[in-house]
């Protein structure tokens, strides 16, 4: 049950609130329980037509020919839509905010890049007739070699999935094949750390499986406009996308929606809107395009697969001194929103901990899988899971209770984050304390008395001299191993790292910590020194302009 802790941060909160903290009835609840809430599909139209698409049975193939003549003659068929009927048959969702290149057709043109890619749409009087006619479309293919693994896809000479991005990676800042984060000097810190461990984590794609599948009904309205009942989670995002693909003035589209039968991120891709509206334009009749459950499961965009490799340097007393994270996001065949998920992932590195040396590299990779999209905690869930499992492993390694280990390394108000933003309202320490208390987890006196409000800032607010590099220039995979260069810190040079008031090494109350022979611990100084950076010293970094900030105005909703 929900509990409001009035003792914590009492002076940061106004308790005279009208809604927050009180039970309020949802305004749509009466409609839900009476069955009167209207979802996109709950609208009757005379003369409603039904649209079904023909999908690729191959993961990757060249299309040799498409023959729709039998489908056009099939009973009930009103119209067959082909790629050449789509006015602007190439789009990328985030082009509406100028991010990324148009890379995805609404209907495949000369190549299919994933199994399930739409090729032709058939519109008929009834759903069964549309499905029967879709079976009559003859497409002949030359299958092509495929790539399904992100790291394989990044290798020079890999199969090219999406010709818009011939290296199989999204291009960041018109410069790099990945998104970077650089803070301090991880290599130097690894050399002096008591232990260095590297672990790999990965996560399979996840389907949102909202109870309502994706779908749209579009119908001609008065004055040459079209009314569109849409399942979209971002109604105006979908309106803009549809207007672009159909080359229509956006004021000719009257989108109605916002009542979504579950989305969780799976209804931001405008999977059905453009074709439904195009169908209504071409037939002059209302057109309904709804994904079946199997279509939704197989071809509706999922949360994509992710892989994270985390390398940490930790001291015997439990301080993490360096963290390096390399992340690979499997976008599938087209960008959709993965490029943005990667930016969010980097924004979450290195987790809610104050670590003086951080390096992050995250790739948005194209493979022959179903294009991925947003899902709750987009870009963040996978990396945070990985970081927290890694935290447990580190705690185990140094023999400190995992809760105390987090309190020890938690960021505190006033600390400098790796993104060069000062941490505010951190509260992690208090969260861990409450969690420990609720689960009857014994914490030491020091850990119980720790506070996110004290012990932060000061030297912990400094930006250290930072090693930067030109690794991963677009089109030059060999630069992924580029030599580093030192950039002076924006404030004073890196002061000695100040540990918060020392937490005594945990005396395990539960069970003795077994030795961990499997974690390779690197003896200090074993690695060769990197080449000494040579002048010219690059200019100080431009004022921080992080991608996440640029997008935050567009993506303020939780997905």
């Amino acid at each position, binding site marked *: 049950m929900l509990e409001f802790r009035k003792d914590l941060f009492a002076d940061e909160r106004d308790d005279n609130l009208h809604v927050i903290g009180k039970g309020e009835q949802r305004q749509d609840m009466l409609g839900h329980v009476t069955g009167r809430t209207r979802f996109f599909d709950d609208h009757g139209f005379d003369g409603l037509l039904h649209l*079904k698409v023909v999908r690729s049975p191959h993961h990757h193939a060249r299309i040799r020919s498409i023959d729709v003549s039998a489908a056009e003659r099939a009973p009930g068929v009103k119209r067959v839509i082909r790629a050449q009927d789509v006015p602007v048959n190439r789009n990328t969702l985030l082009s509406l905010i100028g991010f990324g290149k148009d890379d995805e057709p609404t209907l495949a043109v000369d190549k299919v890049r994933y199994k399930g890619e739409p090729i032709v749409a058939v519109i008929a009087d*009834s759903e*069964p007739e549309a*499905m*029967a006619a879709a079976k009559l479309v003859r497409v002949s293919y030359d299958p092509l070699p495929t790539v399904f693994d992100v790291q394989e896809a990044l290798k020079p000479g890999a199969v090219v999935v999406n010709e818009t991005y011939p290296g199989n990676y999204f291009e960041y800042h018109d410069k790099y094949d990945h998104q970077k984060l650089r803070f301090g000097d991880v290599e130097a810190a690894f050399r002096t750390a008591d232990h260095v461990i590297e672990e790999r984590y990965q996560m399979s794609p996840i389907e949102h499986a909202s109870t309502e599948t994706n779908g749209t009904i579009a119908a001609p309205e008065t004055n040459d406009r079209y009314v569109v009942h849409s399942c979209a989670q971002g109604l105006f995002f979908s309106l803009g996308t549809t207007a672009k693909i159909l080359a229509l003035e956006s004021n000719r589209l009257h989108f109605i929606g916002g009542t979504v039968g579950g989305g969780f991120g799976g209804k931001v891709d405008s999977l059905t809107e453009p074709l439904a509206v195009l169908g209504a334009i071409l037939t002059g009749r209302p057109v309904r395009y709804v994904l*079946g459950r*199997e279509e939704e499961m197989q071809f509706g965009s999922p949360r994509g697969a992710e892989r994270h490799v985390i390398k940490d340097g930790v001291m015997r007393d439990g301080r993490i001194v360096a963290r390096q994270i390399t992340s690979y996001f499997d976008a599938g065949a087209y960008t959709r929103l993965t490029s943005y998920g990667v930016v969010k992932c980097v924004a979450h590195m290195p987790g809610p901990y104050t670590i003086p040396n951080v390096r992050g590299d995250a790739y948005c990779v194209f493979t022959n899988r179903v294009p991925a999209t947003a899902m709750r905690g987009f870009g963040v869930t996978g990396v945070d899971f990985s970081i927290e499992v890694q935290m447990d492993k580190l705690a185990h390694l140094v023999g400190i209770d995992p809760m105390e280990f987090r309190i020890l390394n938690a960021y505190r108000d006033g600390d400098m984050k790796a993104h060069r933003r000062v941490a505010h309202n951190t509260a992690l320490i208090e969260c861990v304390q409450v969690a420990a208390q609720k689960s009857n987890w014994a914490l030491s006196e020091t850990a119980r008395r720790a506070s996110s409000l004290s012990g932060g800032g000061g030297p912990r607010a400094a930006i250290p001299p930072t090693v930067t590099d030109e690794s991963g220039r677009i089109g030059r995979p060999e630069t992924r191993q580029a030599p580093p260069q030192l950039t002076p810190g924006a404030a004073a040079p890196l002061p000695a790292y100040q540990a918060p008031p020392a937490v005594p090494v945990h005396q395990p109350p539960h069970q003795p910590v077994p030795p961990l022979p499997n974690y390779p611990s690197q003896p200090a100084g074993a690695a060769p020194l990197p080449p000494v950076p040579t002048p010219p010293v690059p200019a100080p970094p431009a004022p921080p302009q992080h991608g996440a900030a640029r997008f935050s105005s567009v993506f303020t909703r939780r997905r």
Partner: protein
Amino acid sequence: MPVNVRIVQGLQEAAEILAADRGARLLGGGTLLVRDINEGVMTEGTLLRALDPVLLAINAGGARIELGAGVTMAMVLANRDLSYLHAPARGIGGPAVRTTATIGGNLFASTPYGDFTTALLALDAVVTLHAGFGGARVMPLEEMLTNRARGGVGLVISVGFNRPAGADAFRFLKVARVRPKGISVLSIAAHLPQNAGRISGARIAYGAMGPTPLRAKAVERVLEGRGLDAATIAAAKTAALEGTQPATDAIASEWYRREVLPVHLGRLLAGETS
């Protein structure tokens, strides 16, 4: 041509249509057939709805049991004389599936479905098939399932079997990963009549361990004439996988099914609920 539906009164007429039209299917409850229509798997052909009340007949009071092919899982559950079949009937879908799903349809449901059929197999059931001009042909269920795998069975009118020997003699276990409703990783049915502490006429059947529900004859041989002690159960577990041919699907891999079958068989025989 979209799918057509024909409604007929008598079985004779239904059988004639089925024999004449390869695209015709007898409609049981339709939980599998209508799904194929919805998904566009079946886009033409004829569904045949037979209204003959014999399909709904339940004869459950005596020693010989006869159940019409159109009897639903909910009807089985509502019948107290059939309590030994309640576990397999309750294992099929949620309540709204069970009001619709029929015994006849279950005989044709492809793996990993077929939990009720697995129970019938352990009861040594026979199926009564329509054989033209009011005639009927009785065939062991096992033989019918072999024919099914080859295609072409005809119209099933009913299933028949003897009431199991005693309350504890018939056991059924469905292993699913989602509870209370989930598709089978596998299911096991066992009929273990005992005579002075020794098993006589053991029948063990598996669901989802092959292309159709199948008998575990090696296990039956191990059990025959022995008591259900630890040594017997251990021997049964060793023989558990003989003759099985599980598939990999969305529910479980072939490897996993092989791995867990002996464990669950051991528990079922030991009377442990899992």
